[in-house]
């Protein structure tokens, strides 16, 4: 048996994923009947049973989503732990690239979290309305998410069974380093331009959130997510590591850096998710969830502040920039 599959974290992770998938499967089995027979105007016993069952689907999705939020950092932690077993890896960056399934899996996980967040919003609207107006839509949406979740589950298994402990993987300095002009930034940007873009987009996003422009929020927050990722990896990260050549999104998740990476990436993802959720519920369902917006503003501002703080602290300690 593969050594990877015997490490504690992988066992716990795969067990959790399988349990959640089992529950989702229960929800999946009852959904087609719900969609087919749903008729809110009917007074039959069957309709009442279906209404109750829709609460089961809701409970399961809610539970799974809450756990998936916990499991995302745990997944990152797991691959980080695996870097001890796999030769050549210093952090999660090498492990996630150990085979072709890693990066799509991580991306899919984030997408699923975002989608299930939107599902919860839709669900709340459905329950609060007078005649369950969105139930069918919400169930179709669930089927779609379930499809993604099945792919995710398959990828999970494929990913962990295909990590070789014999083949060395590359270290983060190779994957993200810019030596000899390799791994250049997108669009040929240089660091000052990237930073300018980062702050400009942040200001733009805040303005969009203030002016409640739904489409603007969606576009800018996605752009911001993209640019912020690069800025953290190629600029702010070097201040976290206090080393100009250390460019890696994973090392900051380790204990040496006080697990600060979980906070950095967490704030970014939460902030972007909240803005997207706010914009979508405003655009599609005509709801103005101010709490959501304020939360998004807080999270994003904290994220930008935290990143900038690393630079400021480094400068005030050493008197130079990297």
């Amino acid at each position, binding site marked *: 048996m593969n050594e990877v599959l015997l490490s504690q974290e992988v066992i716990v992770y795969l067990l959790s994923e399988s349990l959640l998938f089992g529950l989702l499967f229960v929800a999946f089995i009852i959904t087609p009947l719900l969609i087919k027979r749903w008729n*809110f105007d009917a*007074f*039959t016993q069957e309709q009442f049973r279906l*209404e109750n069952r829709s*609460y089961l689907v809701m409970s399961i999705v809610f539970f799974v989503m809450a756990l998936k939020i916990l499991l995302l950092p745990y997944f990152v932690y797991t691959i980080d732990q695996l870097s001890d077993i796999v030769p050549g890896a210093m952090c999660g960056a090498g492990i996630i690239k150990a085979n072709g399934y890693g990066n799509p899996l991580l991306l899919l996980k984030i997408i699923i979290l975002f989608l299930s967040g939107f599902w919860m919003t839709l669900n709340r609207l459905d*329950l609060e*309305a*007078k005649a369950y107006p969105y139930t069918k839509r919400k169930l179709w949406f669930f089927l779609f998410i379930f499809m993604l979740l099945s792919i995710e589950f398959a990828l999970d298994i494929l990913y962990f069974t295909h990590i070789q402990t014999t083949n060395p993987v590359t270290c983060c300095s190779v994957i993200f380093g810019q030596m000899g002009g390799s791994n250049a930034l997108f669009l040929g940007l240089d660091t000052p331009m990237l930073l300018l873009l980062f702050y400009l987009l942040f200001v733009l996003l805040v303005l969009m959130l203030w002016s409640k422009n739904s489409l603007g929020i969606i576009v800018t927050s996605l752009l911001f997510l993209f640019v912020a990722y690069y800025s953290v990896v190629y600029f702010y990260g070097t201040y976290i590591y206090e080393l100009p050549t250390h460019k890696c999104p994973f090392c900051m998740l380790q204990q040496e850096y006080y697990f600060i990476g979980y906070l950095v990436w967490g704030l970014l993802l939460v902030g972007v998710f909240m803005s997207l959720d706010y914009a979508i519920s405003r655009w599609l369902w005509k709801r103005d969830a101010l709490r959501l917006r304020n939360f998004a503003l807080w999270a994003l501002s904290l994220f930008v502040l935290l990143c900038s703080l690393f630079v400021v602290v480094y400068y005030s300690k050493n008197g130079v920039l990297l």
Partner: protein
Amino acid sequence: MIEIENIHKIFNEKSSEPFEALKSITLHIAKNEAIILSGVSGSGKSTLLSLIASLDKPSSGKIVVDGELISKLPDLHASHYRAKSIGFIFQHFNLLEALSVEENIIAPLIPSRLDIITIKKQAQESMQRAGIAHKASQTIRELSGGEKQRCAIARALVTDPKLIICDEPTANLDKANSLKFIEILSTLKALGKTIIVATHDPIFDTLPFESRLIKMEDGRIVDE
């Protein structure tokens, strides 16, 4: 205030022996009216009450309370309706036995998201009105039948509902307590509440307040 149009309620629809508990009931109840539903057990009184309180849903027909159609409401709204507009007094009191009087009385207010101080204040007022305030911290198990009844009344009144529904309220009470109960009902009537009582207790034949007697038999209204 309450308009009931052509209500049917069938139990065990799909089975070989469906049972029609209510057959084409139509009834209009005005605000501040007191209705006494009488009839032998099995005549459909309780079913009618549960439909008005939205505890159950009719098989067909319409119930409108204060302009709102309540015969088919999603759960969240049905619950809001029950919490806000209905004070229900059950035949067996239906209190949470493990909790104290006060704790039982605050129960309907919990989903309302009020803070605990407001809730306690309302519960105190309600207990005083029902005359059970002196037993506030006692567990339900330690109470006598009459005290349980008063606790149930206090719970029904705590949300200040417009409509008080009682299902065989005096079935488990002695004569003295029953008379006291009727006294409380008359003060509630004076406060402007609408009252519906399902009973076959003859004590309700002579009431100190104006009331409308409705007789039910075999799922139909036979006499008004």
